[in-house]
């Protein structure tokens, strides 16, 4: 018994273990409810199926959550991503809607470039407030969260801008190499972020700034520049997510686009095992977290439950995952069952005894 436990310890102790268990449980529940859930078929050279749908719909959330992980790694938080999603989508759709030929590639690319540039400016604004002026991140980004929504409605004049542009639509619902285009974009961004942070020193520098900004500065890291950078990256990711969301429905709604995406993104990051205190980040965990949230949403739709009631399930999942990951909760749980202590704490004890 104990040897089995000892062998399983590295698996159950892995930070991705509980999030993955949660994802598998959700998938199994779906399969039990609807046996055709797992089937994926090839139609007209495109892959179709519930699983593909879930990944496609979670692409914007994955993007936003990737940017959010970097921000949270520096000990900050970015509440403004939802507004950036709305603003970038609104600007892109407005520009395209004013083109004589909405299908021209040039017009679409100009629209994307303008909207992306504006999102970068918004990111710099957040970054300057946090890194240069030194305002608490949650408040600094709250400003843009409130004002950005108004800005998006100002851009669309309170209307829903509908466009009819094939190239723009491709971002949301197009296909490339049998896979939905949105998945490929999310994958490419994820790989770029992962390579830049984990194959260079950048990731470690971000984590050190999150651990202690002042100490990192004294160690020769330009903390302010790093803090500014993560907010810009977060806004850039949010902008791409904004293109996807608006392309999905071929229209921009300043009021509803990206509403509450910041909360979902923060949840995805936390479920993935990144602490809100900063100093560490796990990109793979974040992606799993985003998939869990989207699977939950999709299964609730599939089971004919009111989407608003789905929030109840979300609350339960959030609390469950957070409690399982909270050290204080684990310690309490262990104390109550002294007969079957997991092997991990004994290993820690030995480590502690050696220096003593």
């Amino acid at each position, binding site marked *: 018994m104990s040897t089995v436990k000892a062998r399983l310890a590295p698996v159950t102790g892995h930070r991705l273990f509980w999030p993955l268990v949660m994802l598998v449980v959700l998938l199994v529940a779906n399969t039990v409810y609807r046996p055709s859930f797992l089937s994926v078929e090839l139609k007209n050279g495109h892959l179709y199926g519930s699983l593909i749908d879930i990944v496609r719909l979670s692409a914007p959330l994955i993007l936003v959550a990737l940017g959010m992980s970097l921000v949270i790694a520096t000990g900050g*938080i970015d509440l403004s991503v939802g507004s950036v999603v709305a603003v970038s989508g609104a600007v892109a759709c407005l520009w395209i809607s004013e083109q004589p030929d909405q299908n021209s590639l040039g017009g679409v690319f100009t629209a994307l470039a303008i909207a992306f540039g504006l999102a970068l400016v918004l990111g710099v604004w957040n970054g300057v*407030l946090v890194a240069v*002026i*030194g*305002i*608490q991140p*949650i*408040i*600094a980004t*709250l*400003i*843009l*969260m*409130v*004002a*950005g*929504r*108004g*800005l998006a*409605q*100002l851009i669309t*004049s*309170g209307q829903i801008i509908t466009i009819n542009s094939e190239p723009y639509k491709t971002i949301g619902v197009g296909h490339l190499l049998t896979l939905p285009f949105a998945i490929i974009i999310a994958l490419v961004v994820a790989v770029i972020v992962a390579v830049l942070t984990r194959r260079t020193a950048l990731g470690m520098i971000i984590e050190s700034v999150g651990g202690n900004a002042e100490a990192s500065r004294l160690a020769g890291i330009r903390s302010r520049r790093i803090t500014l950078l993560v907010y810009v990256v977060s806004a850039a990711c949010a902008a791409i997510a904004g293109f996807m969301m608006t392309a999905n429905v071929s229209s921009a709604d*300043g009021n509803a686009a990206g509403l509450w995406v910041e*909360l979902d993104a*923060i*949840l995805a990051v*936390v479920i993935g095992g990144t602490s*809100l*205190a900063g100093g560490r980040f796990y990109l793979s965990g974040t992606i799993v977290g985003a998939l869990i949230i989207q699977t939950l949403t999709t299964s609730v739709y599939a089971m004919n439950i*009111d989407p*608003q*009631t*789905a*929030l*109840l*399930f*979300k*609350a*339960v999942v*959030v*609390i469950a995952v*957070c*409690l399982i990951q*909270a*050290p*204080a*909760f684990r310690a*309490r749980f262990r104390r109550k069952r002294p007969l079957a202590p997991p092997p991990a704490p004994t290993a820690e004890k030995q480590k502690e005894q050696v220096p003593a």
Partner: protein
Amino acid sequence: MTTTPLAVRADRAWWRVPQRHVPVLATFVLLLVMYGVGVSQYRAFSNIQVVFNIFIDNGFLLVVAVGMTFVILTGGIDLSVGSVVAMTAMVSASLLRDGVNPALVLVVALLIGPTLGFAMGCVIHFFDIQPFIVTLAGMFFARGMCTWISSTSIPITEGFWTSAAQERIRIGENFVSVSVLIALAVVGVAAFTLAYTRLGRNVYAIGGNPQSALLMGLPVGRTKIAVYTISGLCSAVGGILLSFYTLSGAPLIAVGMELDVIAAVVIGGTLLTGGSGYVFGTVLGVLVLGVIQTLITFDGTLSSWWTKIVIGALLFAFILLQRLVGIRKK
């Protein structure tokens, strides 16, 4: 600060305002300026009923903001308030529809908020999870409960509720609603609690520095749980006032209200890091939001989204001011 000799204090000129009063005074000046602009631009604005209407329209916001002030003073945050307000209104509306005695409905509705707040406070304290995440889960939970109760709006036709909603208390030629009196009573009780009771002192101490509060032997855990319970209670009262105001319970009412509340508290000069701020400042913050809305309504040509942009700009200005005051202190 407390060790400063009294003689030095006496030397200070009478016009030098204590540093911690600066943000509240700035809000007060802003409020006066905005009111002055309104009066100079629109003739009807000078009617005293305009001021009373701001209180009538924002009574529930005021009560919720008072609860949020407690939480923010300890350095925490409560994102669940908007959903708890909606849940309270929903529960009262659905119970009243089923013909439950209104007194019983009041008791039940007033118990839900504090219970949820108490639970969230316990999770925050005992399991050491960030308030942001716990109250976010609470927000999802309460909003989900709303739609679980009913996915459509429930009208309230019960006698006590309608009379409370329509009762006009005359003050000279003008009138206020019952909600305003309740809101002002809550403000009074909260201001007294924060300024003159042990709980209030503990709240400030924990917000200033939880570590030293703990070392001083203050009941940190109990106080933390208490502030979330108080915030839940205030949200419940706010929910009842909202159901007086709208005479219905709707599942999507008060969405995003937590942002308005946090904005009001910050504009009112309460530091988000905790430890500094006043209930009076929060009242001013709510009034500022109310005056902005009234100005935009009076103007008539400005669209509603300008409210958001102006609130964002004000937030920026006040946070910058807090920052400057903080730097001068150093």
